[in-house]
């Protein structure tokens, strides 16, 4: 017998997908497994992936029910930032969790985010690869060096008050996320950074939970070679405007 729910707080997990038909069933299964004791829904935002991710999503919906799995999306690939905004419109929870669908973000950490949030009633809880037991798997020394350097430069120039600015595994109070999304104008990669910088500006409180980031096993990366250029551009933009 399942225990009676501790509280009726509801959590909405937004899962943006593009060509994740291999990963989607696995991530959903993991979420269901690790969120057993919580009241939650998963909102899959699929941008009409050519590999049939939407059909997979609908099949999973049949298995787990419409209460748990909400399937939505756009006609074509419109980018990650706007996928969050789209998903948020469907969120019925008090809190919104944002994560990647490629198994880099393990759902077991969501419970830790939730406990962290309750500790000090944080507005935001962010996963961090750069502190405590956090880390990465499948990165060579070059990638680690680039990542650490980029993070260091960002810390020195922006002093954002959080250790992982570019990660996208986070929990937000719903109205906090709404406010942030409204005021962030960056696209793609830089969007995550701007969200945290603005959060700092608005005085939102942010808790951190160390996470292990395991590089994707299936499917292809959507972020291409000009990642570093995008990062520098975004950094300069935030440096000179915030």
């Amino acid at each position, binding site marked *: 017998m399942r225990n009676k729910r501790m509280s009726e707080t509801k959590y909405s997990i937004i899962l943006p997908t593009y060509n994740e038909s291999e990963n989607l*069933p696995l991530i959903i299964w993991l979420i269901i497994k690790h969120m057993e004791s919580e009241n939650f829904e998963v909102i899959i935002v699929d941008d009409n992936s050519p590999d049939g991710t939407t059909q997979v999503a609908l099949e999973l919906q049949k*298995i787990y029910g419409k209460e748990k799995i909400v399937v939505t999306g756009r006609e074509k690939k419109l980018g990650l930032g706007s996928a969050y905004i789209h998903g948020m419109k469907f969120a019925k929870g008090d809190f919104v969790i944002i994560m990647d669908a490629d198994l880099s973000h393990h759902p077991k950490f969501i419970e830790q985010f939730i406990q962290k949030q309750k500790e000090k009633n944080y507005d935001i809880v962010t996963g961090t690869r*750069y502190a405590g037991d956090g880390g990465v798997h499948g990165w060579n020394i070059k990638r680690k060096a680039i990542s650490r350097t980029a993070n260091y430069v960002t810390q020195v120039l922006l002093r954002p008050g959080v250790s992982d600015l570019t990660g996208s595994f986070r929990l937000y109070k719903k109205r906090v996320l709404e406010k942030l999304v409204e005021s962030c104008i960056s696209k793609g990669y830089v969007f995550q950074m701007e969200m945290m910088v603005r959060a700092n500006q608005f005085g939102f409180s942010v808790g951190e939970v160390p996470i292990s980031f395991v590089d994707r*096993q299936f499917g292809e990366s959507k972020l291409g070679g000009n990642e570093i250029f995008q990062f520098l551009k975004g950094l300069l933009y935030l440096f000179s405007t915030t």
Partner: protein
Amino acid sequence: MTKLAQWLFGITLFLSIWLALLKDLTPIKVTDENFLWISLIPVGLIALFGIISLIIIAYRVSTFNNCDEAAKELLKEIDEAKKDLATKGFKFK
């Protein structure tokens, strides 16, 4: 004040103090002996900052956790997931 403005403010403040020192406008008197050292202060600070930064980054790269356990555990869970989903009638492509 933006971060850029804060940096410009800080740099300007520092340069004015340094120039005042160099032009002998402060109680610390410039002599033939210390002139070279005083004129090298900015370069020295930049070099120091660079070296400290490199040490910090090198340390952080070398202590960046590898999470091998997490990866192993994930692979195990993926296996479980595939089996369980199959029994629930899900068809993998």
